[in-house]
């Protein structure tokens, strides 16, 4: 049987901060974000990012959470016994059996974005695998208001995966490829991902290049989330988290439409929720909750 290339599949990986020695830390905490598509585990030493893993969520949440934490701890010598407090978050947060507490992903994302982008962030757009949220927060990373779409794949990572597969372009290259057009086409007119697929097939048949179709889809996705942001109101500074934040095709079009630049971060944009969880865990340890 011929091997079927899975264009939607993004790179799973783990990371360790070489400048931190966990044995020196007073408080070690973990945040586990079990999303509908991806799971992340973050380990922090005294509130500094020490290690993390980023992987695909399996069909079984408890296992995904365990796999994520084990991978984050790989080659560190850490065991779960060394972790003082663990917070579970995300869509599958109630299925993190070893967590000391579950906290909503909205609160964790705001808290994590505050760490990743600094205290000036007021509006966070989290573009996840199966939902999209716009969050307002204060300088402490506390949520003031939020709205979300979790009903429809348009404007989510899942929708982008469907397109990557349809066009045979690796999900990690979609953004760059979508910028390789001489002239920016109008957005794909169908909102629904199912209908947009049919529309894209028609555009390809009429002679559009793959890049042009990708440009039209990235532009449609940007437009869709702009309307979500307009509903909640844009207050700068602005940051984007989640997997789509890595897609320069969507981000640049979104910035253009909003007339606002998104803040940059050296961290992986997918770990915001897990970082927030680990920071909440630290605060809870300090309050003597464990």
């Amino acid at each position, binding site marked *: 049987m011929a091997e079927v290339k899975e264009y939607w599949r993004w790179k799973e990986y783990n990371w360790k901060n070489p400048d931190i020695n966990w044995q020196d830390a007073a408080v070690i905490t973990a945040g586990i974000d079990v999303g509908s598509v991806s799971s992340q585990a973050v380990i922090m030493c005294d509130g500094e990012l020490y290690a993390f893993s980023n992987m695909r969520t399996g069909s079984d949440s408890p296992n995904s959470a365990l796999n994520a934490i084990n991978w984050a701890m790989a080659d560190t010598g850490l065991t779960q016994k060394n972790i003082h407090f663990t917070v579970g978050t995300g869509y599958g947060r109630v299925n993190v059996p070893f967590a000391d507490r579950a906290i909503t992903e909205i609160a964790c994302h705001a808290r994590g974005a505050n760490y990743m982008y600094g205290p000036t962030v007021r509006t966070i757009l989290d573009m996840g695998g199966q939902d999209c949220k716009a969050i307002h927060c204060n300088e402490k990373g506390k949520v003031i208001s939020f709205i979300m779409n979790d009903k429809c794949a348009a404007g989510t990572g*899942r929708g982008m995966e469907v397109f990557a597969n349809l066009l045979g372009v690796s999900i990690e290259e979609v953004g760059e490829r979508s910028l390789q057009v001489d002239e920016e086409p109008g957005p794909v007119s169908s909102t629904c*991902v199912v209908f947009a697929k049919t529309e894209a097939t028609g555009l390809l048949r009429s002679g559009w290049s793959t890049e042009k179709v990708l440009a039209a889809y990235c532009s449609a996705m940007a437009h869709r989330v702009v309307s979500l942001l307009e509903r909640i109101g844009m207050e700068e500074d602005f940051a984007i988290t989640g997997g789509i934040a890595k897609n320069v095709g969507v981000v640049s079009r979104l910035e253009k439409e909003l007339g606002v630049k998104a803040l940059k971060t050296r961290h992986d944009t997918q770990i915001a929720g897990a970082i927030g969880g680990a920071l909440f865990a630290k605060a809870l340890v300090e309050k003597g909750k464990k």
Partner: protein
Amino acid sequence: MITAGIDVGNKITKALILKDGEILSRAQTPSGFVQKKAARDAFAEALKLAGLREADVAYTMATGAGRNEVTFAQGRITEVGAAARGAIKLYPEARTVIDVGAEEGRALKMDEAGKVIDFAINEKCAAGAGSFVESMSRALEVSLEEMGPLSLKAEKAVPMNAQCAVFAESEVVSLIHARIPKADIAKSIHKAMASRISSMVRRVGLQKEMVMLGGVARNEGFVQALEEDLELKLLIPADYPEYISALGAALAAAEKAGVK
């Protein structure tokens, strides 16, 4: 007088030839990406079946999402108008028409003359159209034609959380992994989609009798789920539910030609 109705749907194009109120022939072809060609092909096939030439047709009326592509037609009528005319011709007692095609769902309320009073439409989201069942049948690895009969064998339905067709596909896969029988999953799929169509019908008002048209009317599993949801029996032109709008267009063509 001989007239023709051509319904260019998002997925299938239908042509129907009418002579003095009697259907002479009907033909269909996939709409593909060149709808004008699909309209030509379906029309030519219908003419052939009726043993006629194009010159024998007094008036051709186009309807459907791609009706503007049918440049050879003399007139055009909206999908809603065509569905109402076709339905009232077959069922004079009908006051509500539910029309579910591949990429659109529609509910309309009409008077005894087939004049449309109000209507609701979904053309934005696959969750309320035939595409939804089609996507789910792929996830279930069952052919679209089998979905209806399979669903009738269900013992119970399980709740489906996802509304979006893309998300529901993943949910169906996890239901299969959870060893829920395929028949029960099929029933759940039809039930979920029926509740979306029924809320559209409720928006225009539950007025009896109700007719269901469109390709999805061939899916007896969906029809059963919708009848259970609405708590009534639907009138269905079972032999050719997808041709009723083309019929309506041909009837409208006859009216036009008559007063010309």
